[in-house]
């Protein structure tokens, strides 16, 4: 069982309640595909991913970024049982999507960078620690059903 402090709970709820999932989803996924281009391997049918401008303007990337953020929302709403909440998603990523779990960390890092850009000075070390802990739990839950 993950132990969350009151500060951590409040911080996570605050960050996500104020977040525009469409914008942040698109920005985080696009950044991941640009900064770590090998992650494009999972999106062969997304059309034009040839350069940063193409990726930033790609509607399929934007749509999928939204899907990812709404998936993350499930963890935000169920912080005390992320493991159970993500059991099926984990199987999906392993058995159907065949995503190397190392990629979860790359997307997580891009999400952290996008969040830092949005929050500016409000992204204090304490807030960063809470956010990264949350992502670590999500990533660990998503990796759990890989065999």
């Amino acid at each position, binding site marked *: 069982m993950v132990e969350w402090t009151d500060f951590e709970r409040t911080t996570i709820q605050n960050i996500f309640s104020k977040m525009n999932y469409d914008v942040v989803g698109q920005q985080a996924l696009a950044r991941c595909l640009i900064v770590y281009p090998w992650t494009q391997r999972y999106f062969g049918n997304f059309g034009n991913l040839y350069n940063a401008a193409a990726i930033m303007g790609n509607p399929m990337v934007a749509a999928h970024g939204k899907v990812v953020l709404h998936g993350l929302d499930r963890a935000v709403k169920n912080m005390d049982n992320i493991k159970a909440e993500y059991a099926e998603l984990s199987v999906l990523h392993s058995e159907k999507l065949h995503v190397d779990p190392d990629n979860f960390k790359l997307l997580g890092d891009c999400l952290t*960078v996008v969040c830092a850009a949005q929050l500016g000075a409000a992204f204090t070390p304490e807030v960063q*620690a809470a956010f990264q802990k949350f992502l670590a739990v999500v990533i660990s839950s998503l990796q759990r059903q890989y065999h």
Partner: protein
Amino acid sequence: MSLSANDKATVKAFWAKISPKADDIGNEALSRMLYVYPQTKTYFSHWSDLSPNSAPVRKHGKKIIAGIGLAVEKIDDLFAGLLTLSELHAFQLRVDPANFRILSHNILVVLAMLFPDDFTPEAHLAMDKFLARLALALSDKYR
């Protein structure tokens, strides 16, 4: 993942923009590293105060960012340019190179925080590559 001419140009241009805030960047990045990754505190047990923005952290943040500034100058030959620093880290400081990645991550987060408009995906890509290459040069003399 070597640096292309474009990467080097991007890093230099971005560095010119951000260097007025170099000391802040150094302080914020080091503060965050020590706070978010407490295992990194083990290297600084001799400091009086390891909390974010403390005097020892500010002082050391300055030193680190100066080293990165040097690396930007020597970007065309990082391994030669950082030879002395590599020897220092290898034989005296003996910092586990895994920690270079951790500090790099925190530098990128701080750049996003302080320069949200300038830290574009392209700048992020170039800086990430540069810091990785820097870390490689810094660990060159380890064994």
